[in-house]
Structures are given as structure tokens and as C-alpha cells.
């Protein structure tokens, strides 16, 4: 007990407790981190989430093409496999990364295209190749892609192509930008509404609390999809894509805040009766300062956890809206927009790889949920 303090009358001996020194000196945040690290699934969630956001940020560089580049010749072209070695004339294998091109036949009756891998067409590929122009991190223009065909006119579809012969891999990577950011920005907006209304509800209680809680129950009882549909139809058709993006954000936040408000209210309710809040009141501290200085620090970690759990809901909602064609519209690329293609039964029998953006949604939502669960468990290190 190196931390014990000598007391005046020498009965220090009696005033010691079995506290471990380590617990005494560590700060709140390192305790949270300590507890979080032991949650294996949450650590995986954190890693995957960070990876997805990193991919979203550098999508232009990582993807071999740009999302708008189309080649009608390669409608629904199947995925290609990367070959690393090629047999030269001498019959020896040499290192030569490449993919094989397609031989296309069109059925004269059904006009259905069928692709056969053409062993003779060799498309050489490489790292840091010059390709289509894009903006790196939205700051400077670049032509360099991490990997791609040496000649940008050659077909290169690692996970296949869509209806217009666009590279699905590129589009999925770009889609992460909108889908993942709509979660973040949307939650930021719901956070503001949620913390204010939840805080008022929990701190003042009484009539205010009852009214706000009934409003939340009302909002949550409205079937979400018809509500979105209604709100989305209110959006003028000729709005530019960026306006649509923000309009969708607002729609999602109008429902998303309820969950955060409930968490905040619950914490406020339990904190309000704590003795230290009463003590602050008797110190003559103003209400604003009680909320911000005395209560907020204890709420912070809980709010972070609630926010992390709210992001996946936003992502799912965006996907659902866009899938129905009422959310974001092409040319904006999001996972939900990409999934619109899977509405066509014939398209998916012919090109099942169109589901790849759906898998991305599942992975992202699971990762964020695991992360949020871990944060929630770790949020109160003193419990």
C-alpha cells in the first residue's frame, strides 16, 4: 500500500484496504482499454471496422478502375482468376502475372451472352499501374492504382462485371465510402438530437420526461419502411446527388435518435439520484455545469458505445432504402445502390457475384456490432 496516507493519530494501520495498486493508479481510459482488449470478438470487430474505413478512404487507389467506366462488351462478365506464372516458348514457367481474356458468344435467339475463358488472350497485370484518373483522398488527382491491367483498355474483372460491364470490385470499394460515411454522419446528427432530448428527459423528469418518452414510443411504433417511403417521395426528383445524400441522412437520423435518447435518459436517471450530483447542487453549482461537468464525464463512455451500436442500423437502413430505389440514386455508388441490380432474378442467375456488396454490408454490420458490444461492456470500468 504505497498509496496510503499517514493519518495524524497513528492509526493508519486501521485505515488500509485491500486495493491493488495497479487499479488505483490507472486512469479511466486505460481501464476501459484493458477491459476491452480481453473481449476477443470486439477486438476483431475493431480491426475489421478500422480496415473497412481505411479501404473506404483510399478506395480510389486500391481499386483497379473507376466506378463510372463501362464496357458494354463485357456485360455480366464472370470473375477472372489471377495467374502468376506463364509457360514461355521453351516450356518453362516464368513469373508473369496475368489474367485471361474472354471469348464472347451471343445466342442468336435469346441474345444471351456467354463468356468462355480464352487461353490465348493474355492480359498482363501489375502493381502501381497507370489507369483511369481519380482523386486521391479528394485532394490531388492521380492515375496510379495499386494493381490493374498494364493496358487500361483490357478487361480486368476480379469479382465480375455488372449490367454495363463496370468492374464490381471497384464499385464495391467506392460503395464503402458512402455506406460507411452515411453511418457516421447520420449517427452524429442523431447523437445531437438524442443527447439533448434524452438528457432533458432524464435530468428533469416529470412531465417533460413523460412527453418525450411517449414521442419516442410513437416514432418507434411507425413501421419504418413505409415511413421512409413517405419521406423519400417528398424529395424533389431533380435534386443533385449530394442533396439527396443529406436528405437521406436526415430521414435516417429522425428515427435513429430515439435509441440514443433512451440510453442517455437511462444514465441520467441513475446519475441524477447519485449523492455527488446532490452534493454539487448543494454546492450551488448551476444546472448547466452539473450536467456538463458533473454528469457528462460519467456518460461519455456509454454514449460512445451507444453510438457504435447505432451505426450499423444506419448502414442497414441506407441499404434498404437504396435497394428499394428510394434512397440514393445512381451515379452515387453505395452498397444499397449496387444491390439494386440483384432485384432482377435473371441477372442474379446469370451473375451471382452481384451479391458481393451484400456480403460487405453483413461484414461491416457484424464488425460494428461486435465493437459496440465490447465497448458497452468496457464502458463502466468501475462496475
Amino acid at each position: 500500500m504505497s498509496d496510503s496516507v499517514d493519518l495524524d493519530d497513528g492509526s493508519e494501520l486501521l485505515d488500509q484496504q485491500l486495493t491493488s495498486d495497479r487499479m488505483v493508479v490507472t486512469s479511466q481510459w486505460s481501464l476501459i482499454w484493458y477491459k476491452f482488449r480481453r473481449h476477443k470478438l470486439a477486438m476483431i470487430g475493431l480491426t475489421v471496422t478500422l480496415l473497412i474505413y481505411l479501404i473506404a478512404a483510399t478506395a480510389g487507389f486500391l481499386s483497379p478502375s473507376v466506378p463510372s467506366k463501362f464496357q458494354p462488351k463485357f456485360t455480366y462478365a464472370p470473375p477472372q482468376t489471377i495467374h502468376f506464372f506463364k509457360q514461355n516458348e521453351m516450356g518453362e514457367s516464368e513469373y508473369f502475372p496475368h489474367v485471361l481474356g474472354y471469348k464472347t458468344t451471343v445466342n442468336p435467339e435469346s441474345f444471351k451472352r456467354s463468356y468462355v475463358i480464352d487461353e490465348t488472350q493474355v492480359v498482363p497485370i501489375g502493381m502501381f499501374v497507370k489507369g483511369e484518373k481519380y482523386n486521391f483522398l479528394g485532394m490531388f488527382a492521380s492515375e496510379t492504382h495499386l494493381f490493374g491491367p498494364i493496358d487500361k483498355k483490357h478487361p480486368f474483372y476480379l469479382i465480375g462485371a455488372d449490367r454495363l460491364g463496370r468492374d464490381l470490385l471497384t464499385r464495391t470499394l467506392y460503395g464503402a465510402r458512402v455506406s460507411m460515411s452515411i453511418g457516421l454522419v447520420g449517427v452524429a446528427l442523431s447523437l445531437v438530437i438524442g443527447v439533448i432530448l434524452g438528457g432533458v428527459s432524464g435530468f428533469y423528469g416529470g412531465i417533460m420526461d413523460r412527453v418525450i418518452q411517449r414521442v419516442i414510443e410513437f416514432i418507434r411504433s411507425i413501421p419504418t419502411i413505409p415511413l421512409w417511403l413517405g419521406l423519400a417521395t417528398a424529395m424533389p426528383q431533380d435534386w443533385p446527388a449530394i442533396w439527396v445524400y443529406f436528405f437521406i441522412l436526415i430521414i435516417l437520423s429522425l428515427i435513429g435518435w430515439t435509441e440514443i435518447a433512451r440510453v442517455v435518459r437511462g444514465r441520467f436517471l441513475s446519475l441524477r439520484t447519485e449523492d455527488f450530483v446532490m452534493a454539487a447542487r448543494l454546492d450551488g453549482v448551476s444546472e448547466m455545469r452539473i450536467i456538463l461537468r458533473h454528469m457528462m464525464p460519467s456518460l461519455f463512455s456509454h454514449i460512445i458505445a451507444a453510438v457504435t451500436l447505432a451505426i450499423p442500423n444506419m448502414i442497414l437502413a441506407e441499404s434498404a432504402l437504396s435497394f428499394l430505389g428510394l434512397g440514393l440514386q445512381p451515379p452515387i455508388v453505395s452498397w444499397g445502390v449496387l444491390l439494386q441490380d440483384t432485384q432482377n432474378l435473371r441477372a442474379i442467375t446469370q451473375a451471382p457475384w452481384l451479391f458481393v456488396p451484400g456480403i460487405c454490408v453483413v461484414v461491416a454490420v457484424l464488425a460494428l456490432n461486435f465493437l459496440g458490444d465490447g465497448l458497452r461492456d468496457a464502458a463502466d470500468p468501475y462496475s
Partner: protein
Amino acid sequence: MNNRKKPILQVKNLSVDFPIHKQTIKAVQDVSFDLYAGETLCVVGESGSGKSVTARAILQLIVNPGKIMQGELLFESLEGAVDIAQLDKKGKQIRKIRGNEIAMIFQEPMTSLSPVHTIGHQLVEAILLHNDISKAEAKSQAAELLRRVKIPNPEQALNSYSFEFSGGMRQRAMIAMALSCKPKVLIADEPTTALDVTTQAEILDLIAELQKDEEMAVLFITHDMGVVAQIADRVMVMYRGQKIEDGLVQQVLEQPKEAYTKALLNSVLKLETPPMHAKPDAKPKTIIDVKDLKLQFSSGGGLFKKPTLVVKAIDGVNLTINEGERLGIVGESGSGKTTLGRSLLGIYPPNEGVINYTRKTGEIIQIEKANKATLKSIYGEMRMIFQDPHSSLNPRMTIFETIAEPLRANTDMSMAQMRDRVQFLLEKVGMPSEVANRYPHAFSGGQRQRICIARAIALNPRVIIADEPTSALDVSLRHQVLDLMLNLQKEFGIAYIFISHDISVVRYFCDRVAVMEKGKIVEIGDVAQICDAPQHPYTQKLISSVPRPDLKYRKKPLLQTTMAYGDV
């Protein structure tokens, strides 16, 4: 005296470890003791001394991640001697012993009974688990048990739920359940700590009586030296996981051998010898004058519903508090003493009555009618100390921030001035000023309460309302905190309203005492008069129920020698 030589339970070199955060807390280290049939062994110690862990180890009930590291727990079971330490935690054998041969009762009777089953259902289940009899027989046995623990109308009580019972009744039901299989050993882990003194006295009597009938060995864990003096045959003192001393109760209490035991006893006995009480001034100046105060709590109301249930928390109280005086308010839980203290601060608005507060300037303010700004200005003069020093300090604020908060809100001191003032206050409460930048969780309960006192005196108050400031502390710390408050009074002339259920603390600290029962003050007067010659029957009952740490007041006969047990 009985002449059984063989102990029913022998604990040999017991050690229990709790591995936490890569390091190990040795909760119990190398503890050995014997327990004989028919005797009461009291285990005393402060919080964290390992007394509860020892008791739980005997039944293999240690919570994770605790583990018995070494030692033997030799128990004379019906089927011969067994070493409980070797048994599987969830095995058949230990389950047979638990409840059947060794029973345990816990501190909190609310949480140890299921709220969704009737008392009868739980009792019958316990009886059927260990006996091969029909349900009807079990039911009549259950009723008989409730009669034995003196629950009125046992047949009716069988159909009641635990929440319909008071704390004392619940503890009785728990005891009935523990006794349902005629155990040879009863382990009681602070069974009366959560109860009022009058109830505590009844429960202690009950346990003693049942013990006599059944020749049961009782291992009684407590921190209350008064209880020890009243019921123990032998005492074992524990400190930081180790056994410090054991022996017959008269040996340990009257001729303690170890320094720790002496220190512990001194801190208890100090409360028995009151300090100088101030002689009342001929013309005391009144600070607070309460007239006909009535306050009701109502519940059950909703958005469209009128409140239905009404509780009269304060029912016509008249009270005056004079300058520089120490007024005690005693009463059992639910008597309205805390509510009274809080309504003086305007926290709960009263339904009727007047609370007049006389300011330093002579101006009289009616607290029940005061607006927020007036109340705020009074809060500098009237301060409060809370019961639980763990919840009354904000865990996310440093000690400096906490103590400076009233200064920040009520004065326009600069940062440097506040630093000086906080340093001064910390010195006044006996804390080194370096602690100002630490967070509360770095301090023990007693140190935290000192910090709370520093916060209370930050604005030079005239009155401090102290709501059970010592009841969450270990006995050894109580008189330290009380002495600190007394010293501060001498220096700053503060008046205290001291709310407590603990008569010994009130006797030590207060000049004048008001006894509350069911929202009314039944008796008020000088501390000596109330404690030594109480007039009202309720006060008499209250005073006589307090177990005193003095063998003079003991009713139970003392064992004269341990030789009857053989060695020791």
C-alpha cells in the same frame, strides 16, 4: 459446560487467493481455528479482513475468481469426517452438506429470498430437498419452523411473499430456512448489520435460543464489538487475511494480547466515553426554527392518474437548532430522520409548516418559500455531509476540483486563491495537500469522508447537516471522523445536525438528542438524559437494544475455561 472434546469443524491453514489483473490478492492467509458444538465463535475484523471469505470457504461458496489454495476444512459429517476443501464445488457431497449440515444466513435478507415465490414455497422446497417426506408434512413442518422463529400467524405467513415482510421478518424467515434441516453448524455472515437495533436485539436473542435447543455451533461474523460482547463464547480477530488473535471473549475483550486488537478495542471504547459536552448558553441564538412541519410522499400517480399511496414521512415536527450546538436526530429506518434533514435544506418541499432560518445578518428566511437564488445563497451557510463517501464524491473529478466546486460557484476567487484555500482545508481535515490532484478511488472510506468534510467547510458554514456520516465506515475510523468534526466545531463554531441510527455515536458526539419515530419527535433533551434516563417507551426500547461492547451488560453466561474443550 458440555464435555465434547472433538471439534465439529476444524479449519487448518486455510488460504484463499483472488487472482485479479495479473496479481493475486491473498484474501485469507494461513488461518486455523476449531469450532465446537454448542458454542458461538465470533469472527471480528474490518472490511477487507477476510472474515466473510473464510466463512464462504467453509461451504465452498467463494465467488470467482477466488480459489482455496491450501488448507483443510475437516468436518464431522453424519457420514464420518470429510475434508470440505477437497470436495468438488458443484459436487453431490458438498450439496449434501450445504443447508443440511452446515447452514448459512447472509447480511441482506432481501436479496437472499426469492421475490417471486411465497415464503412457504421456498421453505417447503428446502425441507423436501433434504428430507424424504410428503409435501403436506413438509408444509406443517414449515409452519412449525416459522412459529419457532416467532413469526406471528405462521400459516398465513407461508402464503406471503418476501417483499410483504419487513427486514427483521425476512431475516427470521431466512433463519427458519437455514434451520429447516437441523444443521450442526450455522454460519451467520453479519446477519443483523442491515437491521435496526431493536430488530437486531430480537434476532440475536432468537439465534441464541435456537442454538441452545439444538446444540448448534454458530460461526458469527461481525464487525460490531457490541454484538461480540453480548453473544460470543470465543472470539477470533482477523486483519488483512490473517488471524491476529483468538481466545475466550473475556480474554480478548479485557486482556487483548496483540496491538491490533487493542487498537480496535480502543477505537470502540472511545465512543463509550463521551468528550466534554458544552454547557448550554443561557441565551442561545436560534439558527433554525421548525414549526409543525408535515411532509408526505405520494406515489402511484401517472400521466392521467392521481397519486394514490401516501406516506407521512414527517408528521408535525417542532425543532430548534441553536448556534454552535450539536443536535442528534436518532431513529430507526423509516422514521423520517433523513427526510427531515433534507427538508431543512429545501430539497423536499413540505406540505405544511414553517422552517425559519436566521442568517448571520439577523435576517429571517422561510426556507419552504425561498426561491432558487435565495436557497443558493443559504447553501453557503448550510452544508451537508452524506452517508456514503463512495457515492458522494464524483469519481471523475479530482479532489481539488471537488473541494473547489463550492468556492467556484459562490465566490470569485482566482485559481491561485482556490488552490491555497483547498490546501488549507485539506490540512484542516488531516490530509496532506499533495492528494489534491488524485481521484477519489485512490482513497479509503475514512479518507473520502475527510474530503467530504473539507468540501462541507469550504465556505465557512454555520450549520452542517450530517446524514449518518459514520455508518458506512469501519468502527476504527468512526471516532476519528467524529473527533475531526468536533475539532472543526471548536475552531469555526459550526452547529451540527447529526442524523444517525447509532446511539453510541450520538452519545459520543451530540449535546442534545431528538428521538424520531414514524415521522414524529417522541422525545427531545440533553444527551445524558436521553441515553441514561429515557422517558418515552420507544426511547427506552431503543437504548436497551443497543449492544454495548462491555461485558457488564452481557446476559449470556461466560464460559470460564477452554479446558472443557480439551486443549486450546
